């Protein structure tokens, strides 16, 4: 009798566990939201807070979309931070006013599209470079992007002579700082990008193939997928995302320096991991990535709101990442 109730309770517990495992991502987000709402006495749920959160996380969201795609192909990208930094610097350098004596191109005023194009192009080129190293050079993504990380860092320092690229033109700053009605521009860009990536991953052959490549590269090859090309495209699109991230970061801050986006690779990788994109490849979706970004954002935001010492913030973030990966592993490592 006692035995029976015990097993019934066990089964119920298992069911709850299964549910929790399946929706870890969403549950984490909801639980955090509840905790924060209580701790801030509702402050975290006011529109102004949500708006601040959207603005704060938007650039990281672009980075997360990029690296999310790469992780789906079972890759990884360590170069994000410095590539975004380089893109921001390149974009900023073309957005300085002609009459600013500290400008990188003194006395030259470029049309507004140039910084945007230049920033995005820089990111895309770096993405394709990473892609070529991984797809055709057969380098492990970890090493390939570690190398390009260092290259991006060096290029940034050389290009800017290690100086701040600041005093950007107001028209350029408007791109990242403006808003349409109550909605910040940045949030709109993220929404559009998320929809586009969703279409890519869910509704195109190219995107679906990323899952196959990440799920089992050999089987993908047998299935007629041009694996090398697919990887190039994945890293290229990721680079494009970083380019946009860098351009927006420059616009939003009104400057770029060598510390811009430092450590963003870890933030982005952590966010998508929390969002259920598995490091074992072939698993993940845009909804999860975005939830992951805003989960990490909530943590940042809540801790700032509560003025918790940043040292503790680091620890809490670390624990959340470890937990997320722990559940991820449990979910997929059976057998």
């Amino acid at each position, binding site marked *: 009798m006692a035995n029976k109730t015990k097993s019934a309770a066990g089964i119920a517990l298992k069911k709850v566990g299964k549910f929790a495992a399946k929706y870890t991502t969403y549950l984490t987000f909801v639980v955090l939201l509840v905790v924060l709402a209580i701790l801030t006495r509702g402050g975290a749920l006011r529109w102004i807070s949500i708006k601040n959160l959207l603005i704060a996380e938007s650039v990281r969201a672009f980075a997360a979309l990029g690296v999310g795609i790469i992780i789906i192909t079972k890759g990884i990208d360590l170069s994000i931070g410095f590539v975004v930094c380089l893109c921001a610097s390149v974009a900023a350098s073309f957005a300085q006013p002609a009459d600013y004596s500290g400008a990188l191109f003194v006395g030259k005023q470029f049309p507004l599209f140039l910084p945007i194009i230049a920033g995005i192009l820089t990111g895309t080129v770096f993405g394709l470079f990473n892609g070529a190293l991984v797809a055709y050079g057969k380098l492990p993504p970890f090493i390939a992007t570690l190398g390009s990380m260092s290259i991006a860092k060096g290029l940034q320092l050389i290009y800017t002579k290690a100086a701040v690229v600041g005093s950007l033109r107001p028209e350029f700053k408007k791109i990242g700082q403006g808003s349409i009605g109550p909605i910040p521009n940045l949030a709109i860009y993220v929404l559009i990008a998320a929809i586009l990536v969703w279409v890519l991953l869910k509704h*195109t052959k190219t995107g679906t193939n990323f899952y196959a490549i990440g799920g089992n590269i050999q*089987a993908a090859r047998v299935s*007629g*997928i041009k694996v090398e090309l697919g990887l190039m495209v994945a890293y290229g699109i990721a680079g494009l995302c970083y380019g946009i991230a860098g351009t927006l970061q420059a616009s939003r801050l009104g400057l770029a320096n060598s510390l811009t986006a430092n450590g963003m690779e870890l933030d982005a990788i952590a966010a998508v991991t929390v969002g259920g994109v598995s490091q074992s490849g072939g698993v993940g979706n845009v909804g999860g990535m975005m939830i992951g970004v805003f989960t990490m954002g909530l943590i940042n935001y809540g801790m700032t709101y509560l003025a918790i010492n940043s040292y503790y913030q680091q620890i809490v973030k670390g624990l959340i990442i470890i937990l997320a990966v722990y559940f991820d592993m449990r979910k997929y490592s059976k057998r």
Partner: protein
Amino acid sequence: MDSEYAIEMLGITKQFPGVLALNNVDLRVKPGSVHALMGENGAGKSTLMKCLFGIYKENAGKILLFGKECHFTGSGDALRAGVSMIQQELANCPERTVAQNLWMGREPMTKLHFIDHKKMHDDTIKVLKNVDLDISPETRMGSISISKQQSCEIARAVSYNAKVVVMDEPTSSLTEDEVNHLFKIIRQLRDSGIAVIYISHKMDEIFQIADTVSVMRDGEMIGTYPITDLTKDKLISLMVGRDSKERFPDIGPMPKTNVTLKVSHLTSSVDRSFTDICFELHKGEILGIGGLVGAQRTELVESIFGIRPVKDGEVFVNGKKIGKLEPSVLIKNGVGLITEDRRRTGLFPMMSITNNTSVPSLGQYLNKMHLLDHRKIGTDTVKYNKDLNTKTPTMETLIQNLSGGNQQKVIIARWLMTLPDILIMDEPTRGIDVGAKHEIYMIMNALAKQGKSIIMVSSEMPELIGMSHRIMVLCEGRETGILNRDQMTQENVLTLAASFMK
């Protein structure tokens, strides 16, 4: 008090969520005997063994080693107690030497607590002698053949004073000579009083080596029999639970039709692989490819499909020469390949049945805006899997959660969805149970009757003879002959398969 049995597993029950994997199973193994454990895939053999080694915790029942109750906490723990497992996939460190592998984790030490390399070297030679292996202890493990690696593994077990040795499909990658050698070792082990639990699908082997046979089905122990009381047919019917007289469907005579695939003078870029292979495949024909391990059959079909490089030769599909041998091109021309190693080159383990089925044919399901038509993909994946009788809870179930036979059906469905004229099946029934095998044969026959051409690579002689209109035999990468239906005997196939160049 010593028991009559080396190992007794009594009333073992193991419950997984939703599945009763083992139901009150008893297994008693006597020392000094080879005890075969038989059953279809999913019958519970592996689960039972995992309970023995403590990898799973049984829900009920107890395990006795020579009459003493024991609970292992893993294979390492069991090994120290004298119960060892020779895995199907060998678990060694290929980059370390034979000696290092043998004594891993218990290296002999000098007084100063450094590794005593001299003793390790000498002990290794001593232990290897037990399994008739004459190799240097300093050889890198990865550089010797699978069969020798296996012997090393057995030597390792013996060096632990093993009393019980479990072997899971030990012959799956061995040549006939190697199998004979292995059997010799097994008999030596048996004669020295060790209890050997032998898990295999191969009937012939069981009748050669086993003294006793225990048959499992659907998580239950059906019974334990002396080998002398059994015949092949009886054993099969015990495993399947029904008679299997009709093992192969009637594939009919060789069709007199057009050639759909022509391979001429194909030579691999890899040294010592195949050279100068020529053959033709007709519409509606099933062409078997036979040969011993190392005959380069897989290499040949994978090269035709463009996965491996070729140096020379041409491939024609429906009269059209294929310019570049590349999977995407072959698929476009109506060729599909079901690879030999499902896990490595077939499955996308963490993807759903739907996605696993549709991967190579997505190009056919684009709408005007070049986006995927998910509804149509959905209905077609359901249709093909239904036609093949794939058993799955839902189409969204991850393929890794299906049994081997059902996984294979999903992969067949995958290729049928590309609407192929030619289907190359490399070991289509490997690692799947008897019942599912029969279904696969029926599917192959139906496809051939529909006019699809099939190339079947197989290591199982009866399958090769039962399911082929013609058999091409390879030996060491050379084509040694093509047999028509009336010439197909085991002897003929074997003769061609073993016609090595002097």
